[in-house]
């Protein structure tokens, strides 16, 4: 039975994994993703899933086992955070290059040093070029919904790429919120059975994986991944439509919140978007034309669609919760690229916030809208790049 319940973000992911019932889950625990695997291993122990759980000695081994199990012909899932994913780095590329549709929950957390356990997007943004589809979520409902959609997107024959389902560490993973948990059978029916391609265990039809590939073919294989990632855009749209038909919640590549007649827009990712919506509602009551564009799919990145959505907007503040030292924030770089060919470009500037979990309150978001109001009135972006709420700034 479908039911509404109060549950943590991590708990929602383990429930989703239970419903999906993957063939294999190799995992190594790391804060703040530990709870996902802890809860799921309980489901395995209680016989609620048929999953073969492999407790490995490191995250590098976890992702290696994911790749091996997927190549053998299984539907495979795992979860990690931060340094855990950093240790998977080499294998992340191999998962995507071998076109294994692994689904991984990534609970976003800062990277060391200094050591920090809290939310920022350094981990996933660092892996943006690893060839994984990246979906982001504002709350536990969206993260759960993304997880349910992920296998269908990953396993499309013209995609066959791994998917990272991201949410903010602690802010979402450890936050109890109410959400709709869908009916087990309905979820299973929606996802359907797993269709393996050239499984290693099919000894009647032997195949080779991870062969040497030099000047002769390597670049063709990379281009094939690029094309698959472009196909993923349609796959995300299509699967999201099917999901909406069955479960009623609608998702696009990004969410446009009150931007139709907005003059000033914030673009952001993940949990901060909830607060931004509250602030927008407050300011809208006072007649202020402000809006939010919330990214759901960062890879593939919807350039044309975002440019179209911002057509009548006059100024855009891009909030990045990660750093690319010596460059602009990763989201800003994409947004400005998206806007370059627009006939009437809005003003656009970048703010870094929330690294290592530094809180952004609703009053801070009001300050952002006050700042971009001044910029719009004066016609000048005073500071193209800056930090929010930082000492010595």
């Amino acid at each position, binding site marked *: 039975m479908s039911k*509404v*319940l*109060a549950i943590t973000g991590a708990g929602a992911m383990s429930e989703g994994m239970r419903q999906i019932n993957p063939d294999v889950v190799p995992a190594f625990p790391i804060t*703040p993703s530990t709870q996902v695997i802890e809860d799921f291993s309980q489901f395995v122990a209680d016989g609620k899933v048929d999953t073969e759980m492999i407790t490995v000695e490191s995250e590098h081994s976890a992702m290696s086992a994911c790749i091996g199990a997927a190549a053998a012909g299984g539907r495979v899932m795992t979860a990690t955070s931060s340094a855990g994913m950093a240790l998977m780095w080499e294998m992340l590329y191999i998962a995507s290059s071998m076109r294994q549709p692994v689904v991984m929950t990534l609970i976003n957390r800062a990277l060391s040093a200094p050591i920090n*356990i*809290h939310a920022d997007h350094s981990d996933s943004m660092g892996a943006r070029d690893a060839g994984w589809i990246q979906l982001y979520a504002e*709350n536990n409902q969206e993260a759960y919904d993304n997880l349910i959609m992920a296998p269908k997107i990953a396993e499309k024959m013209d995609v066959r790429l791994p998917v990272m389902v991201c949410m903010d560490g*602690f*802010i*979402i993973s*450890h*936050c*109890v*919120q*109410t959400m709709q948990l869908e009916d087990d059978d309905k979820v299973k029916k929606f996802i359907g059975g797993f269709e393996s391609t050239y499984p290693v265990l099919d000894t009647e039809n032997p195949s080779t994986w991870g062969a040497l590939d030099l000047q002769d073919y390597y670049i063709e294989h990379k281009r094939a991944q690029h094309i698959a990632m472009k196909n993923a855009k349609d796959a995300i749209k299509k699967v999201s439509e099917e999901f909406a038909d069955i479960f009623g919640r609608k998702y696009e590549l990004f969410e446009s919140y009150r931007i139709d007649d907005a003059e000033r827009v914030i673009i952001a990712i993940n*949990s901060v978007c*909830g*607060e931004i*919506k*509250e602030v927008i*509602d*407050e300011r809208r*009551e006072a007649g202020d034309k402000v809006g939010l564009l919330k990214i759901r799919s960062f890879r593939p990145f919807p350039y044309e669609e975002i440019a179209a959505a911002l057509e009548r907007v006059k100024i855009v503040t891009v909030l990045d919760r990660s750093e690319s030292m010596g460059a602009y924030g990763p989201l800003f770089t994409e947004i400005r690229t998206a806007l370059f060919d627009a006939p009437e470009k809005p003003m656009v500037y970048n703010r870094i916030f929330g690294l290592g979990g530094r*809180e*952004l*309150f*609703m009053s801070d978001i009001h300050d952002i809208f006050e700042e971009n109001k001044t910029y719009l009135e004066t016609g000048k972006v005073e500071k193209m790049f800056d930090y929010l709420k930082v000492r010595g700034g």
Partner: protein
Amino acid sequence: MNKDIIEIRWHGRGGQGAITAAKIVANAAFVSGYGGVVMAPTFGTERRGAPVLTSLKISKQKIYDLSPITEPDMVVVLDHLIVKEVDVASGLKPGGLIVINSPKHPDDYNFEGMKVATADITSIASESGLPPGVVNTGIIGAFAKASDLIDIDTLARAIENEFKGKHPQRNAEAARITFDNTIVGG
């Protein structure tokens, strides 16, 4: 826009179960018809014994703001010695409620313009047959009595659900006995 949010900040010590207590209340609040429930712990470098806190927001409507509470309506303190270390009344709204696990009477506390409720949960928990130091279920009874927000029976059921296989009845009983023994000051 949601202006109808009740904000409750929980202070405890690492290992004491303040977060579990807030989670139980979150679940009971949801069952009682609060459609919007957010329980967001503030994790630091906590170790056993260090002061910790968590934010619980409840509302009839969906809550979008997940940031930590800065101006609570109520504060719940699982160990009265924390009052000496942490400004538990920080940002508390005028007339706000402070619920403390304490052997003292509410009149022994001086929180200007605030309402104080106390219960000697540490002693009550032992009477309920719980191991020494388990106070996170008793405090729920004190919270129920002092706040009058959520029915004690609903809370007791939420406690039993959370502690399946870990003395569910004794924990629920600790909450009920505490409910009857909570002193609410003026």
